[in-house]
């Protein structure tokens, strides 16, 4: 079962792939949009294609809507969700889903597990939370890679993207993460249901 997917950015790619694999699918990367502004206009078109084939589209909620269903409605309007389309909105962002795996995160980034937030979906700026956690890492290489220099003017450190991708690919366990992230739990449940209903086959 091939599942095509479209995501916002490079760090979302391993997340989408692991989720598709989790429900028994083979991920088929189609679009890494380079930002939600570039992904959003394509959603209606992808939704049409998803009448015939399994599709997974992942987008961050950020502060763009009160809740995920409202955002989905706005993205698709005036269409309705296609039968083989799984359009998921990560609350607040994919980083929340990654933080959900506290054990994996703490092992990989060498931060105390007690510091990893219990409810990552509730964080307003999960990216900032990841950087702040890495500030406390016992490993200097994590701090240098993930935390920005004061004068850099940036929210993240010089190797943030490559480390986060490496973590997501090699260490992150979506099942474990879903225990702390209800938004991720709902996404996995929905994907499982699509498989069970034969929509993803």
């Amino acid at each position, binding site marked *: 079962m091939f599942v095509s997917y479209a995501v916002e950015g*490079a760090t979302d790619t391993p997340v989408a792939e692991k989720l598709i694999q989790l429900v028994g699918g083979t991920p088929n990367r189609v679009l890494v949009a*380079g*930002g939600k502004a570039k992904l959003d206009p394509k959603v209606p078109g992808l939704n049409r294609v998803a009448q015939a084939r399994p599709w997974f589209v992942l987008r961050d909620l950020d502060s763009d809507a009160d809740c995920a269903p409202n955002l989905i409605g706005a993205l698709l309007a005036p269409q309705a969700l296609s039968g083989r389309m799984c359009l998921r909105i990560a609350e607040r962002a994919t980083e929340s889903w990654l933080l959900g795996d506290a054990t994996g995160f703490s092992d990989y980034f060498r931060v105390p597990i007690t510091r990893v937030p219990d409810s990552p979906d509730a964080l307003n700026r999960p990216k900032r939370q990841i950087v702040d956690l890495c500030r406390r890492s016992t490993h200097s*290489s994590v701090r*240098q*890679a993930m935390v*920005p*220099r004061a*004068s*850099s*003017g*940036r*929210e*993240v*450190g*010089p*190797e*943030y*993207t*490559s480390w986060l991708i490496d973590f997501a690919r090699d260490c992150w366990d979506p099942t474990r993460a879903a225990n702390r992230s209800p938004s991720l739990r709902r996404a996995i449940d929905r994907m499982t249901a699509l498989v069970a209903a034969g929509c993803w086959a």
Partner: protein
Amino acid sequence: MRLTQLTLKNWRNFKSVDVDLERRMFVVGPNASGKSNLLDAVRFLRDIASVGGGFQKAIESRGGLRRVRCLAARNFNRGRVTIAVAIGDDTNPRRWTYELTFSAEQRGQHRPILISETASDNGHKVLGRPDDEDDADQDRLTQTALEQVNANKAFREVAVFLSSVRYLHLVPQVIREPDRGIDRVDDPFGGDFLLRLAKTPEKTREKRLEKINGALRVAVPQLDKLDLVPDEVGRWHLEARYAHWRVHGAKQDERDFSDGTLRLIGLLWSLLEGGRDAGPILLEEPELSLHASVVRQLPSILSRVQRSGGAQVLLTTHSNDILDDPGLGIDEVILLEPGDEGTTASTVEKVDNVTQFLEAGMSLGEILAPLTEPGGVQGLPMQLTLG
């Protein structure tokens, strides 16, 4: 140690530049804004400090003083050219300073002569020219102290550091040339690249090639087992196994490698070369011939190599794939803007509203696009017709 500050007056197309330098620096600007000229100021100091180099030769190889002096100079800095650097690290960014001001002789042969040359060690002046001896013998002003071992003793570290600067603009066709490396030394275009590999002690070379192999496995998955081997006439070749339908694949060498593969190998080798305490590397558009997805990794690659002691890198680029990296600091990008009075250069932190734009979710590439694109570029196709 790294270059922590670069100051220029009347150098080529820059009337006045003063920028702080981090470990990674990305120089951006429109075509012909002088990106290479900015790097050339550092090369110029390298050429002076290098064995077999010197001040006169450095000027001559650039086509004379007329070519290096800014057209907009007029009376600014009294028409003289000044290049100054600070060298140090994060804890002591001005450990060393070196400043050279030069012009042409007023009379006689109009030779390039230095007007002043100063150096300081932790703020203490260790060189101040012209001195009494210079006043007594004007010919002395045709040579810098930087290029003379018996005159640069008090700031030898600066001379050694500057002479270790490497400039790289690898051209795959030059690497592949059969007569490469015969008389070329330190060739920025890669003419002696394979020879440099061959001269590296075997164990070090194998270790580096193994690391490069690891990176290549990701970027060019069909290539494996990169090695340097001599042919029957003793010429060196980069060889790799190329996986295809045959079980064991086929051997290929640099003559078969793609431009992108060769440039990537050259780039990675240069970053690993020198190891700790290596002098700064100047790179021209490292994105050439590489796939955008590979280019996007360059900022991370530089950071990673530098964390383990790798050299400072100053590079020119036109690539938004580089500039869109979310970890790229606003103090790591130098923007060149041409104007009537020459080109100005400043780090992006000085661009109006840059932090607000970043907070609004824009990338540095997006923010800088209007400042680096030529105005009216969309009309370019309409300018071209045959006949």
